[in-house]
């Protein structure tokens, strides 16, 4: 092997680092030399030994899949054909395969295409693990080998695999009589490639993806096992380059009974939680059966469920169940519609706030969002800009003159004509068009014109909330305009306004507002701006 590739990537240093390196050298050096040096033991998943029964009990509903995988992996040092594990998100694929390897205590190399998002990163990550190379301050956090092309990767991979397998064989030969703890079993190395579905979106995916699949055929080493993990099924990977598909292992989504078993694990009060699950599991499973989504929803709901427990000390179990249920039931429908929401305040505060606001009835219709307030802060000028963008996207440009002259809101005084059948049909067609087309684009000048019109309407003292606002509404002030442009760019960064296509004639960029009508109404309400008067309705 020639004089190769330990490239030192020159790194820029900060002034403080280069100055401190002169003085604190001794201390730094000793610290670095004490840093961890990986050995063959690090190729194993680690942790305490896990027996097969413990493995099955930690994944109570995946017995079939675990036994399928363990049988495909086979006994020690038995070659295997590549396997392909697939199933929906949050079904336990990655965690189960890693725990299986903890149980088997066999050496593995793990790479996920989510963290190794380019071929170069992927190749280097695998090689670093095999060469037992750790990125630390000594080597400047660089990889052991620089590798960009598949051909280089195959050669380097074969070399490093041969050396690791050789070491493993020596190890297993030595320790056949008494096993030292922590040493890996056997002399086969397993490669686990996770999140394979992301490779399809890479730049050169038409060559890289078949390469990943034919890695086993190219390597031709029976001491290497290959395991692919993907969110989507094997039929979404078809290409016209030849490779034989790996053996599929399917992880179905959990059923309701599975979820009940999973959620009952590690609960102190199983009876109470079981009664909670009986109430809550069925309706929520109609929306989603994913463990991560349900667990966040259930954790806050369980707290709510247990609220009246202090009062129910000395009642029978059945009575307690009934009372808890009657207290809890109105919340179910409400929380179903909020199941995917992430609360912006910590839950305890939400509780106290909600109690303050709600005086009497608990039950609200599903659209309670309409009456809620904007739950994040925006400066007043940003709010006006957002409303202007919404109006610009929503209304046709020809209407601006009539809407935004000095007699704003005069629309409402127009004579209401009787609605004929034709105009109703037109209205429906117009609504349909709005649904399909989405918000329109507008040039920057139109946005600024509308903004100036709207903000010049505001007179008088500002609200107490907005006292700290810097911006003052004086038209013709050039400082004002640059602030507005900065506000526009921050709104673009927040994806409230995006750059749409460019104008076909002039080539200038056009913008598009991305907020819903609900949010625009909320923003307008917080400014006490009569938005519905300005909305174009046919």
């Amino acid at each position, binding site marked *: 092997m020639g004089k190769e590739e330990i490239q030192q990537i020159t790194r820029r240093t900060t002034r403080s680092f280069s100055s401190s390196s002169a003085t604190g050298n001794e201390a730094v050096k000793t610290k670095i030399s004490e840093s961890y040096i990986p050995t063959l033991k690090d190729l194993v998943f680690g942790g305490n030994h896990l027996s097969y029964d413990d493995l099955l009990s930690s994944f109570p509903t995946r017995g079939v899949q675990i036994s*399928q995988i363990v*049988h*495909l992996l*086979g*006994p020690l040092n*038995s*070659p*295997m*054909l590549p396997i392909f594990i697939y199933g*929906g998100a949050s079904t336990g694929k990655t965690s189960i395969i890693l725990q299986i390897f903890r149980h088997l205590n066999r050496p593995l190399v793990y790479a996920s295409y989510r963290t190794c998002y380019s071929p170069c990163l992927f190749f280097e990550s695998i090689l670093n693990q095999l060469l037992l190379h750790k990125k630390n301050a000594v080597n400047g956090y660089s990889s052991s080998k620089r590798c960009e*092309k*598949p*051909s280089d990767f*195959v050669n380097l991979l074969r070399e490093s695999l041969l050396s690791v397998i050789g070491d493993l064989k020596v190890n297993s030969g030595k320790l056949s009589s008494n096993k030292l703890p922590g040493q890996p079993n056997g002399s086969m190395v397993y490669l686990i490639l996770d999140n394979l579905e992301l490779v399809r979106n890479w730049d050169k995916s038409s*060559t890289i993806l*078949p*390469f990943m699949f*034919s890695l086993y*055929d*190219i390597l031709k080493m*029976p001491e290497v096992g290959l395991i692919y993990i993907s*969110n*989507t*099924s*094997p*039929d*979404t990977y078809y290409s*016209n*380059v*030849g*490779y*034989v598909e790996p*053996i*599929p292992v*399917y992880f*179905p*989504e959990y059923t309701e009974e599975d979820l009940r078993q999973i959620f009952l694990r590690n609960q102190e009060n199983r009876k109470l939680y079981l009664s909670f699950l009986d109430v809550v599991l069925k309706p929520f*499973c*109609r*929306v*989603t*059966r994913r463990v991560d989504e349900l667990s966040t929803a259930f954790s806050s709901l369980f707290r709510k469920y247990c609220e009246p427990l202090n009062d129910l000390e000395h009642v029978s179990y059945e009575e307690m169940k009934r009372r808890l249920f009657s207290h809890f039931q109105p919340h179910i429908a409400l929380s*179903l*519609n*909020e199941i*995917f*929401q992430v609360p912006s305040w910590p839950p305890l505060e939400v509780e106290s706030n909600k109690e303050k606001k709600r005086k009497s009835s608990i039950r609200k219709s*599903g*659209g309670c*969002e309409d009456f809620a307030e904007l739950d994040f802060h925006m400066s007043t000028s940003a709010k006006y800009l957002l409303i202007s963008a919404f109006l610009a996207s929503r209304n046709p440009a020809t209407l601006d003159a009539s809407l935004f002259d000095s007699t704003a809101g005069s629309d409402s005084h127009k004579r209401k004509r009787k609605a004929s059948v034709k105009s109703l049909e037109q209205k429906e067609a117009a609504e349909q068009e709005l*649904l*399909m*087309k*989405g*918000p329109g*684009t507008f040039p920057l000048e139109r946005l600024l014109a509308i903004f100036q019109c709207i903000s010049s309407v505001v007179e008088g003292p500002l609200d107490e909330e907005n006292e700290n606002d810097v911006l003052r509404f004086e038209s013709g002030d050039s400082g004002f305009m640059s602030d507005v442009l900065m506000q526009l760019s921050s709104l673009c960064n927040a994806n409230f306004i995006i*750059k*749409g*296509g460019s104008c076909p004639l002039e080539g200038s960029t056009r913008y*598009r507002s991305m907020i819903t009508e609900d949010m625009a109404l909320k923003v307008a309400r917080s400014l006490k701006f009569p938005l519905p008067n300005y909305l174009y309705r046919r």
Partner: protein
Amino acid sequence: MGFQSQVEKAKNLLRTRLCNPNFIIKPLSDSPDSNYCKLKFTISSSITEACNNSILLVGPRGSGKIAVLELALNDLLQEYPDTISLIRLNGLLHSDENCAFKEIAKQLCLEHHLLFSKMGKQRLLYSLLDAMNTVTSQAVVIGVSCRLDVDQLLEKRIRSRFSHRKLLFLPPSKEDVQRLLEHVFSLPTDSSFPHDYAAQFNGKLQNLLADDRFKEIISSYLDLNSTINHLVRFLFIVVSLWESKSGFLSLENFKSALSSIQRQPKQECIKDCSILELYILVCMKRLEVKEQNSYNFNSVMKEYRSVHDSFQTSDYYAWDVCLRSFERLIQRELICFTDNRAHGQSVEFRPVKLLVSYVELQGGLKSYRSCPIILQKLMDH
């Protein structure tokens, strides 16, 4: 040796055999008109007669082209130890021509310098074949491809220098398959294996191979995937399903292997969906049936609302919740966007379409546990 350990040893042996392509290809290469013999004859004759030659091996993926090639090359390397040097190039690895040149130089242990700078496309092939005609050294170029029309893809000047020798790798015949099964599964009766167990195992194997139901399973598998590698994959699953408790392979192992390999991924995906996701799929199907050419999430929500209004379903959820389920369906690849991220519209305005057929959706609903009856009714209208 205890019974369990005999079984384990047998399992290990079978797995090793199945993962070794050389072992698999042997019984198929024994007859004199097999591809192996033809290939070996061609190469050895060009070595002995000191002439140049080019051969093309074509056949569907997994039909054993590389295995036969390796087998032939191994034998030839033994017969003519010092006269052959081997260069292996792979289109997946060395897709760039500079890369290919470097690889050739590396495998020939030459210092690499760029030969043949800047010519047209396919210059590597052209220069190789050209060099064979002009230079005094001799080479045999063997091309392997899974496309049967690969010689049509070559440029004219290359095709003209090609000697049109093509070896076609056909799917194995029934006799070949039978021979392969015996070859793979028969335990050796020499001293490396406990004799009684091996004899018993082989006896049961013969019974199994003669069984009609067994032949039916194998032929129904081969109807779908007729190449050797696919068969090997199937046999590997059979061995992995072979429980250690029973000492011998049984018909049940083959049956369960067949069902585990014949999957219907879209049906499985539909069974994984939640009920709200099924509602969205059914609404999309109804929109497509109404011949709305393009529709987006907002149209689907409109349909969802009208379904709820006419049938008073109990499953009516907020817009946010439905949007999230909609995004889950996109992740599962049951539906997809029909535009290419044009103009950066947000999710609810982009046109979408179904990626499952109505028949698959219907089948999925039927096999769905506790599917609401309303959904089946909606599918029919």
